[in-house]
């Protein structure tokens, strides 16, 4: 098994090495001359408003939850799709049930207006 993924590991090592080498070279070559103007947050030339650590809107979290729940659905969908041809109707009905139950949750959010961005 490891032999099959050795290429991925080599890729990982090279990618890490490339990044670290770039940062180290930059660290060695650059001259350090910080001032307040230079250290401020870069916002495409605009004057930065507030810090980078602002408070986010709570709405983002609702969409993150929806994303995670349907992300979990995907991991069940994948092995099902691999064996779908062998198992036929039963597997299809099971998956329709599974998806139907989850779509109920989506319908609830829709009905309650959580999907709307105010």
């Amino acid at each position, binding site marked *: 098994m490891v032999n099959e993924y050795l290429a991925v590991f080599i890729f990982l090592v090279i990618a890490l090495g490339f990044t670290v080498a770039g940062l180290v070279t930059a660290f060695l070559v650059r001259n350090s001359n910080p001032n307040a103007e230079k250290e401020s947050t870069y916002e495409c030339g605009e004057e930065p408003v507030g810090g980078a650590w602002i408070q986010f809107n*709570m709405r983002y*979290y609702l969409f993150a*939850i929806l994303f*995670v*729940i349907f*992300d*979990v659905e995907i*991991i*069940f969908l994948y092995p099902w799709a691999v064996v779908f041809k062998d198992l036929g109707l039963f597997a299809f009905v099971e998956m329709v049930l599974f998806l139907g139950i989850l779509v109920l949750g989506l319908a609830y959010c829709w009905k309650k207006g959580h999907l709307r961005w105010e």
Partner: protein
Amino acid sequence: MNNLFFYTIIIVSLFIFLIGVYGVLTRRNAIGILMSIEIMFNAANINLVAFNKFMALEESIGIIFPIFIITIAAAETAVGLALILSIYRKVKSVYVEKMDLLKW
């Protein structure tokens, strides 16, 4: 060799689990506690997958069980963080010693 490998895996997952326990006991931030719980979940998953590889159990049970654990962990994180955020709205804090509304 197989035996050594097997026991190394179990000891490593034991270490990871204990790090999670330590995090749960010492973190003040409720989000930090949730992260430590994730570490403990992963230690358990490593163990299950190792049993699947090195023990004669039912076929692939050590793969299917972690899938359900990961599912539950995702649901748990969603609800747990939702609770923490709703407490944060009321108490304006995520530190667990501030969450004492139910204390006598």
